[in-house]
């Protein structure tokens, strides 16, 4: 019941908020509900058994029996932290948007909670169709978040976002249906369970694009690549980020992009091991291109929100090459980098939102000398900048280091090039920092009619947990990596023949769910 509760509580909360009679007290209510959700999700962490790689706290009930589609939730080391990241960011975002969202508050909070359900469902669903349901559902609230509360070009941005993402995912749907037929051929009964998909032995012909495994691989990979976004498909991201309201940007960068990389990790790579191996060079290449390209383009952006958006493209490139390095460093680093990016980019968007609320401008050239006026803000921004660059002792360092180590072990050439992204990252972030916070006071800073105020207690309260996480994850990465280690090791060891078992109640006293006999006895 725990995972069901975690996934569907936000939906219940959205109903409560939707039916709440007044607009008054809506913000504290939403914050309280988001905190409840976070606490409930902590129970997963407490019950989680980090010694095993198998799927835990499983809940599986038949849903559409005719096609073997089930209501199937489960958590393991790959999804655990992403779930917690989602629930952790939600209250922060709600607190961060306390004053910035004025227009139809109620609708906004409803969208936020529905989105949370969709994202949690995506991370926890272990049935392909069930997963697809949440995957597509996540588009709707985000579409409204950008379209209603966004900037001037919001409609263009939101429709582009929707259609890009949908384009990728429909081909995945065809692939899912096809694989359901493959399970029917292999096991005699149709199943959409991911665990059965893992067991399939799909014929692979190297070098031939129009062979079964390659086509299925690319159908899935395209969906996730657009979501990540991988280099040639990234164009929706800057638009969506720039037009989205701050909370939308934070969730988009913090969690939604991870749905793509998580998809690679959970679905594409283990299901199609040969194709993933064979085409790894392609994904590493676009990953590296993304790193360099994102960094170079970020450097020249006059708008700091857009700069951070492009830096996301660059950071997601690291995650991608880490995943396709197929060793424990690469995969572990990729997973860690997902969390880092969620924390640090989320924090950056929040900080940008805070300054934007004060000045209503995002042009870097109009700022300057902000450090003297807003010391607390500057310190926060500096810490997050360091984290984003990946300075040692911050979380970014651990992730990037592991990814580069893994890549070096697997494909040194790509590592050489990717390393330059670290330097470029420092260049654009530090240069932006210099232009905004140092030097001559810019026109917005000098403006005596509208003196700038430093962070309020509420805003400090928003930043403190994020900054704590930056250092905690930077200094004690073991706290986090230990939970995922078993899963990552299992993934590396069973490379080429990945399988996942369900933890049975016998070896886990916490799980009360009766596990249904699964299809797939050979």
């Amino acid at each position, binding site marked *: 019941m725990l995972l069901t509760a975690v996934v569907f509580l936000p939906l219940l909360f959205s109903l409560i908020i939707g039916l709440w009679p007044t607009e008054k007290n809506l913000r504290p209510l939403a914050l309280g509900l988001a905190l409840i959700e976070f606490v409930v999700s902590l129970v997963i962490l407490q019950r989680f058994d980090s010694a095993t790689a198998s799927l835990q706290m499983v809940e599986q009930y038949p849903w559409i029996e*005719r*096609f073997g589609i089930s209501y199937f939730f489960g958590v393991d080391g790959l999804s655990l932290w992403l779930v917690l990241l989602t629930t952790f960011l939600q209250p922060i975002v709600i607190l961060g948007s306390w004053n910035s969202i004025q227009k139809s508050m109620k609708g906004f909070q409803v969208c936020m909670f529905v989105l949370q359900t969709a994202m949690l469902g995506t991370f926890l669903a272990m049935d392909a169709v069930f997963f697809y349901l949440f995957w597509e*559902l996540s588009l709707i609230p985000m579409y409204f978040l950008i379209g209603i509360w966004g900037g001037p070009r919001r409609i263009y941005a939101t429709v582009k976002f929707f*259609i890009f993402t949908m*384009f990728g995912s429909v081909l995945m749907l065809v692939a899912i249906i096809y694989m359901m037929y493959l399970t029917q051929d292999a096991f005699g009964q149709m199943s959409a369970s991911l665990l059965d998909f893992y067991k399939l032995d799909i014929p692979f012909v190297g070098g031939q694009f129009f062979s079964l495994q390659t086509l299925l691989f690319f159908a899935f990979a395209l969906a996730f690549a657009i979501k990540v976004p991988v280099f040639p498909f990234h164009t929706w991201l800057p638009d969506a980020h720039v037009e989205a309201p701050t909370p939308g940007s934070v969730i988009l960068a913090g969690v939604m992009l991870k749905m793509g990389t998580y998809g690679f990790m959970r679905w594409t790579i283990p299901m199609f091991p040969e194709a993933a191996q064979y085409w790894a060079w392609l994904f590493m290449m676009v990953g590296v291109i993304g790193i360099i390209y994102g960094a170079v383009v970020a450097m020249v952006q006059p708008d700091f929100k857009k700069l951070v958006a492009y830096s996301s493209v660059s950071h997601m490139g690291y995650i991608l090459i880490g995943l396709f390095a197929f060793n424990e460093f690469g995969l572990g680093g990729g997973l860690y980098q997902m969390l880092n990016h969620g924390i640090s980019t989320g924090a950056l968007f929040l900080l940008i939102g805070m300054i934007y609320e004060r000045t209503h401008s995002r042009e870097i050239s109009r700022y300057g000398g902000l450090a003297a006026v807003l010391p607390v803000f500057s310190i926060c921004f500096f810490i997050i900048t360091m984290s984003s660059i990946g300075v040692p002792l911050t979380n970014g360092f651990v992730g990037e280091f592991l990814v580069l180590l893994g890549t070096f072990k697997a494909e040194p050439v790509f590592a050489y090039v990717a390393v330059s992204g670290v330097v470029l990252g420092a260049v654009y972030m530090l240069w932006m920092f210099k232009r905004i916070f140092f030097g001559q006071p810019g026109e917005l800073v000098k403006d005596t009619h509208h003196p700038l105020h430093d962070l309020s207690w509420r805003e400090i309260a928003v930043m403190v947990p994020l900054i704590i996480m930056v250092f905690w994850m930077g200094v004690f990465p073991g706290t986090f990596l230990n939970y995922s280690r078993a899963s990552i090791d299992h993934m590396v060891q069973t490379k080429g023949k990945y399988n996942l078992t369900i933890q049975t109640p016998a070896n886990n006293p916490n799980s009360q769910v009766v596990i249904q006999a699964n299809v797939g006895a050979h």
Partner: protein
Amino acid sequence: MNSEVALLDILKVSPMIVLFLVSLIPITVKVLRGNVEQAPMATLIQGLGGIIAAIVLMFFVHEVFMGLPAFSNALVFDGVTKWMGLIALFAAGGSLLLMYDNAATNGSQFSELMFLTLNCVVGMLILASAVDLLMVFIGLEIMSLSLYLMIGMSHEQKLSKEAAIKYFILGSFASAIFLYGVALLFGTVGSTYIPDVVAKTGDLIDTSRVFVFGISMVILGFCFKVSIVPFHMWTPDVYQGSPTPHTAFMATAVKAVSFAAFLRIMETKILIGSENLLDFLQWLAVITMIVGNVAAIMQNNFKRMLAYSSVAHSGYILVGVITTGVSDDVNFGAASVVFYLVAYALMTLGAFAVVALMERTEGTIVNIDDLAGYAKKRPGMALCLTMFMLSLAGIPPMVGFFGKFYIFTGAIGQGLIWLAVWGVLNSVISVYYYLRPIVVMYMKEGDPIEASTPMNATRVAIIVSAVMVVFLGLVSGPIFEIFEKAL
């Protein structure tokens, strides 16, 4: 053919008889009162009563006579009859609610309209249950003749008359082509009974060109009725010109029963015999999807957009029909078609009902831009329309997604992967225009026009459809299984 009419036959067609008798009540009353209308509410209650009685009888008849023929094998009462008939009856019930409220239809001729509508439904039930090609033709004509009159009913709108004439002329052509096809089939097979045709198909398909011509023409007749490109030309004009409730009625009920008859023809396994015909139908499906979707993008008139979207949906359903035609497991394909039609009927009826809410007078033309600010003014209705649009676009967890899911699952199972790929890519195109009303409602400021009356009946239809769109999506599995077992 020996023609004995037994009492049992009368019982089997009791839903049709009841509908016909009920349809006489309002006009009889009107005649007896010296050409004075009774209260529209009374007419509505009588009509709905008739439909509910027919629904109940439908369940009863199929409980007792499942799978049995009637009237010397002219009609059959099987799963297709039952479910397609029920779709038609429910859609008709919903449309009646809309007609009761709408400015174009509830004037001084509501009694006549009730007569026409209910008789149209009688034609539909005949069409859905016919297993003899001549009976199919009779059903088709009863349905169409009522429709021609209904389309032209609006007094104010010139477009309405134009639409009626257009539909009449093109519809007559299509009927003629259909009948010609039936004649050719009779010439080669020696019977118009569909199972006889099925039995001979294997022999004749390779040897007799005339037979192939005949069956192709029969298929083309249906392609016209369900607006498959390139026989769709009438659809946008007629959908736009007819009073909105009638459009809703045509888009849902007429389409459902036409596909029912189409399915029966497909069960002849003609597609397995003739590769060319299979290729041809596949291309029709492909063209229909793309033409419908691309043309819908260009539309500014809401009803016209929904008309093109209806063309596109015919393309998706045709994929299911083709699947039925080529697979050994007929039930699966047929069930996917039926499920899709249920889904399609719900969401389309709802969408047209929202359009009807905005029609202040008979002449009002609702453009998509007129929806600006609707979400602020009527949040509930805007939410319902959003659900219909997302469902039409095939976004889970709405029922429209599962409709597509089953259709494409069937197609992939039969190796028609390219049709499935084409179908899903088209649903991406369709997202663009289905999102437009939502964008305009929620993201633009404005003061939308609205009908002057509260239109409570229409609202009921909208809310019921919206609830069903979500609910049926979540329980789609068991429902699909019911269809599959029944067909």
